[in-house]
């Protein structure tokens, strides 16, 4: 399956790109996706969204999902 990945703010700087499209094995999770996009460990406070809904690293992915990695938010 293929998923679309987005990186925001300091996470974009860390991985050196704002988006990506990644091929993964069926039944892959967000954790598997992170391993495919970076050799570094996922920073502890990273927030994860799948299809624009907050979730966690164990979330099982589906073909066509949009996954976002970003640091704690600082709006307002």
């Amino acid at each position: 399956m293929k998923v679309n990945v987005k990186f925001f703010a300091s996470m974009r700087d860390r991985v050196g790109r704002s988006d990506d499209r990644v091929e993964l094995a069926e039944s892959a999770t967000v954790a598997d996706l992170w391993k495919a996009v970076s050799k570094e460990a996922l920073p502890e406070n990273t927030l994860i969204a799948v299809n624009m809904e907050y979730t966690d690293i164990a979330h099982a992915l589906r073909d066509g999902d949009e996954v976002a990695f970003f640091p704690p938010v600082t709006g307002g």
Partner: protein
Amino acid sequence: MKVVVQESEFDPWKEVADYQERYLPKGRHGGTVVFVGTMRDFNEGIEGISSMYLDHYPGMTERHLERVVNDAMQQWEVMDAFVVHRVGEVRPDDAIVLVAVWSRHRSMAFDACRFIINDLKHRAPFWKRETTPDGTRWVSGNTTDHGTK
């Protein structure tokens, strides 16, 4: 209810007046609570912050804000609510965020407004990158509202 995420500058007081004139029925609301967040030229011990870039997640940001405003409107019997948030380049003294809430009684409007701005600060996908005299830096965390949990 309306949520706007925009790059252009806005005058929060004019926005509130215009929204009220356009959408609120006359003589029905008893209280309006307005929060306006403004850019400072200092943060976390650093003075002379000349500008700030506000990043966001188009689509998720709007969806998240609409959900939290709807939640607040149901929880506190709010009559109407209006949120505006800047993105892109902002400068000191610019309004960054506006949260306006109308209700029959003041307590509902105060509670709902505080709920919306606190959720926005802790959950809505926005990120600030400041330009300081020493270069640029991503702001690592928001200030805590000591009045609430």
